[in-house]
């Protein structure tokens, strides 16, 4: 009897334990069958293959052009997806006017390490309640939202009207350079002196009521630059890159004579912008080992044929 009793315990206790354990070890089920898990699956088109081969594989950048409402900040806004015909021309501009100058100057490793990785495209602009429109947005150094893709047209395409279309292309490249400059200074901060050059003249949220000309009279390269320190820095960088040396000089020379509403003289405004220029150049040299004037020449040369 005693023997039997021992036997049963030896036999059944493991069985019991196994019984409990077996339920815990049960497979999770058909995980792969959860609808939409891992993203939507669509049959790749020629455009998808081109993007994969030309942008995603070499630069680790994805383009999302199929409609997904939740990639856009404000779901209450009416937007439309882009026309497929616009995707490759746009991606080619990204490659030629922004990626290539940086890679030629600094190399693929630098670029792939810091570049934003995700582009989301909208066919239309985003209208704001005050009648203004949004052309581009960037989030967290990773994602760039590009609006108005359906009106994007470069010089090489039929139906290009310079007065209307060149501004769209230029503004687009401006956005790219602007956001990338943000990423750079978020990794290594620009010289503190930069914040003091136009101290006391920043407009903050009021920048939307300031024209570019008024901003330049105070030593800011654009109205948006007057909104804060960081945007002042990246606007200075991006305008220098898209306008080139000659364009930059032309902007400085075009600052009207006289004194601004805030009491800045033309000579003072030009001196402030020159100081910012010098600080940008030295920042790129010391922080990243980049010859800024060479990069500027490359960037402008790459943009020129598209305008």
């Amino acid at each position, binding site marked *: *009897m005693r023997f*039997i*009793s021992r036997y*049963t315990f030896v036999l*059944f206790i493991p*069985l*019991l334990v196994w*019984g*409990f354990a*077996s*339920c815990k070890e049960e497979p999770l*089920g*058909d995980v792969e*069958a*959860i*609808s*939409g898990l891992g993203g*939507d699956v*669509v*049959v790749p*088109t020629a455009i998808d293959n081109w993007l994969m081969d030309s942008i995603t594989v070499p630069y680790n950048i994805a383009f999302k*052009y*199929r*409609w*997904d*409402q939740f990639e856009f900040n404000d779901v209450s*806004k*009416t*937007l*439309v*997806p*882009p*026309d*497929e015909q616009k995707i490759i021309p746009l991606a080619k501009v990204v490659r030629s006017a922004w990626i290539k100058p940086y890679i030629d100057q600094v190399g693929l490793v630098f670029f792939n390490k810091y570049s934003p990785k995700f582009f989301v495209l909208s*066919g*239309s*602009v*985003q*209208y704001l309640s005050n*009648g203004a429109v949004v052309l581009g947005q960037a989030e967290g150094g990773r994602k760039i939202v590009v609006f108005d893709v*359906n009106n994007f047209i470069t010089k090489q395409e039929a139906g290009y009207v310079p007065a209307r279309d060149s501004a769209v292309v230029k503004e687009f490249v401006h956005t790219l350079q602007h956001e990338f400059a943000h990423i750079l200074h978020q990794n290594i901060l620009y010289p503190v002196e930069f914040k003091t050059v136009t101290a006391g003249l920043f407009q903050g949220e009021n920048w939307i009521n300031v024209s570019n000309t008024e901003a330049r009279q105070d030593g800011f390269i654009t109205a948006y630059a007057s909104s804060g320190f960081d945007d002042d820095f990246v606007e200075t960088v991006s305008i220098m890159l898209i306008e080139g040396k000659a364009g930059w000089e032309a902007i400085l020379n075009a600052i009207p004579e006289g004194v601004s509403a805030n009491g800045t003289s033309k000579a003072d405004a030009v001196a402030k912008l020159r100081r910012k220029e010098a600080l940008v150049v030295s920042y790129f040299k010391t922080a990243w080992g980049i010859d800024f004037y060479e990069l500027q020449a490359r960037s402008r040369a790459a943009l020129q044929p598209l305008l």
Partner: protein
Amino acid sequence: MKNYYNPIFLLCLLAGLMSCEKEDSVFEQTADERLNATLADYQSQLSGAPYGWKGVIYPGAGGVYSFYFEFGDNNRVTMYSDFGLESAATPKESSYRLKAMQTPSLIFDTYSYLHVLADPSGSVNGGENGDGLKSDYEFSFQPNPDNPDELTLIGTKNQTRLVLIKATQEEAVAYDRGDLAKSFVFSNIGKYLTYFKRITLEGKEYEIAVNQIARTITLTWLEGSTVSSFTTAYYYSSTGVSFITPFVNGSVTVNGFSNITWDETKLSLGFTAAGTSLVVKEAAKPLKVDVDAPKRWYNAALAEDTYWVSETGFHLNGVDDAFNVNSLTNGTAYYYFYLYWPGYGPNYDGFGPVFVNDNALALYYLDAPGTPTFTNDGRVLFSGLGTLGTYPTSGPALAIRDYLYGSSGFYLIQLSDTTYDMVSADDAKGWIHWEK
């Protein structure tokens, strides 16, 4: 010995029951399996239709638009749309996908003719900037298991209704042949010189009015001496024009117009309605004149001390803005609209162009018609008392004034509380649209 075993067996059984209690759902499959099956069903329903689908969409801003879709099983869709002549004649391919959102959804995920309606840019579709025509391109399926030949979808953003009906082989051939574009000859009805147009159906005369922007057709007829009217939205199809609401009057039922023909030299439109082939005829007068309309029009503005506005001036003999008032300028100020202001002065009205100068409205000169005469047969007659400001001695302002005074008066056709058309009583070949 047996007794000894039992409690242990029981314990073992109990443990097994408790721990392995599986979700004994009322369904045989998991929610994911059922969702995937539903999506697959909709996918095969869409791409399995051998001759595609006819679609009709009702955007929030009004109007009705028709489409023809051919869904492939590779996320590609080809469509035609009756939004314009080009989209009716040229197929466009774009992308779509089915997705489990809150409910099974159909998303047209790259730009297509469907997105033209939803585009927030007013320059694309004539809607308000920021809204477009309040249409959709992301839809949820409304379950309709009883009728696999029809699908109703509701837009996610604007709740636009899109109804899909399986097309026949004949229809598929017609769309690919460009018959949808051919139906657009119906829009030539806008080229008739007279404001009033009539058709005769089964011996009864009907006045037909077509609003091509709102896409409505209004039929007006007399029952004895009372006026009856019927308005329906319409869209273009591969066979002609289709009514959203069929017109029924006694034994006559009209679902639309087919076999539409247009004679450019005679400016004559013909079509088949209710099995009868007929021709649209010009008319110089309404079927029944609304005798009180001129007074209503005049007093509506007078009572509120406001004025009637027309941006386009007179349409005359088939020409929009025949007097070219849109070309008026005054210094740097440019033309905005023409106004008629009842009771502008103590015994006179105001009629003249309003300009925009430096973002503000400006009135530089006015014609001063006396209080108009309202005749017993429902016409309004204008005559001038003088002018205010420096009135031009030539050009559009003079020509439009002469037309206002020179003819034998106007009929007023009330379209809504705030809109009237003022039609020349001479021959009905000149009219102006007033809104308040």
